[in-house]
């Protein structure tokens, strides 16, 4: 493992344990201010809605290639999470937050078992079969790729899957 990755992992552990130090880390990333806000009204009842998760917690199947941790500007690519496969097949690649707890229980970043319980109870319609995962910490030259290419791609895929609601979770 190279020195940059070690440094990032160490920082992520420290700021998770000592949230007061996280303020400096947070301030080091300054996203551009958006003026407009996109809006689609919610028209379908929750108990008839199909719900998908899109996470930026770096979740992926073990046999999918990991996210690129060497590029300092991150990785704008995504992975398709197939719920037909066992959850034990999932793992996390992400050096910018401490995922030791999420490694024990993926639901704290990717709450798929909780969604399944809600489905069983009739609180929601269905859990989607396919979910989508990114690695957060996407900056610099990768932002246009994310906004113009990969994010619209998964949005269209979600549409094709007849997903009614998307829940987004960070790392």
């Amino acid at each position, binding site marked *: 493992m190279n020195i940059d990755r070690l440094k990032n992992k160490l920082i992520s552990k420290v700021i998770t344990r000592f949230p007061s130090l996280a303020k400096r880390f947070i301030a080091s990333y300054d996203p551009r201010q958006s003026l407009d806000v996109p809006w689609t009204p919610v028209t379908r009842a929750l108990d008839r809605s199909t719900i998908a998760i899109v996470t930026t917690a770096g979740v992926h199947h073990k046999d999918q290639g990991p996210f690129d941790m060497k590029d300092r500007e991150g990785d704008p690519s995504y992975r398709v999470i197939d719920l037909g496969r066992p959850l034990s097949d999932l793992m996390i690649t992400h050096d910018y937050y401490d995922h030791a707890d999420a490694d024990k229980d993926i639901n*704290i970043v990717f709450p798929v078992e909780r969604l399944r319980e809600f489905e069983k109870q009739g609180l929601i319609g269905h859990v989607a079969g396919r979910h989508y995962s990114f690695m957060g910490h996407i900056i610099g030259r990768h932002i246009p790729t994310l906004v113009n290419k990969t994010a*619209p791609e998964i949005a269209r895929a979600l549409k094709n899957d007849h997903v009614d609601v998307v829940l987004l979770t960070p790392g």
Partner: protein
Amino acid sequence: MGLIQREIEKQGIPTIGISIVRQYSEKVRPPRTVFLRWPFGHPLGEPFKTAQQRVVLAEALRALYVIQEPGAIIDLPYRWRREQYDDRDIQNILRVVPK
């Protein structure tokens, strides 16, 4: 996360995001957000605390129906590791959701 959320909403699917950094959500302005002042890597709480995770999930789903103003952020009242969670709260949280 917010940038991805905005693109999904633009394609016509309503979205809700769970945020743990309020200032990112304020700047990026995704359509709907619930915010928790919780540590990185724990948007739904602690491992194996299923009642806690279910409460956060229910709050997020509730926010879909409650938020009327684009870009609104709901500050959830739960303190990190200082709350008791009960599955009976779920029905109450989702009470406002239309059937």
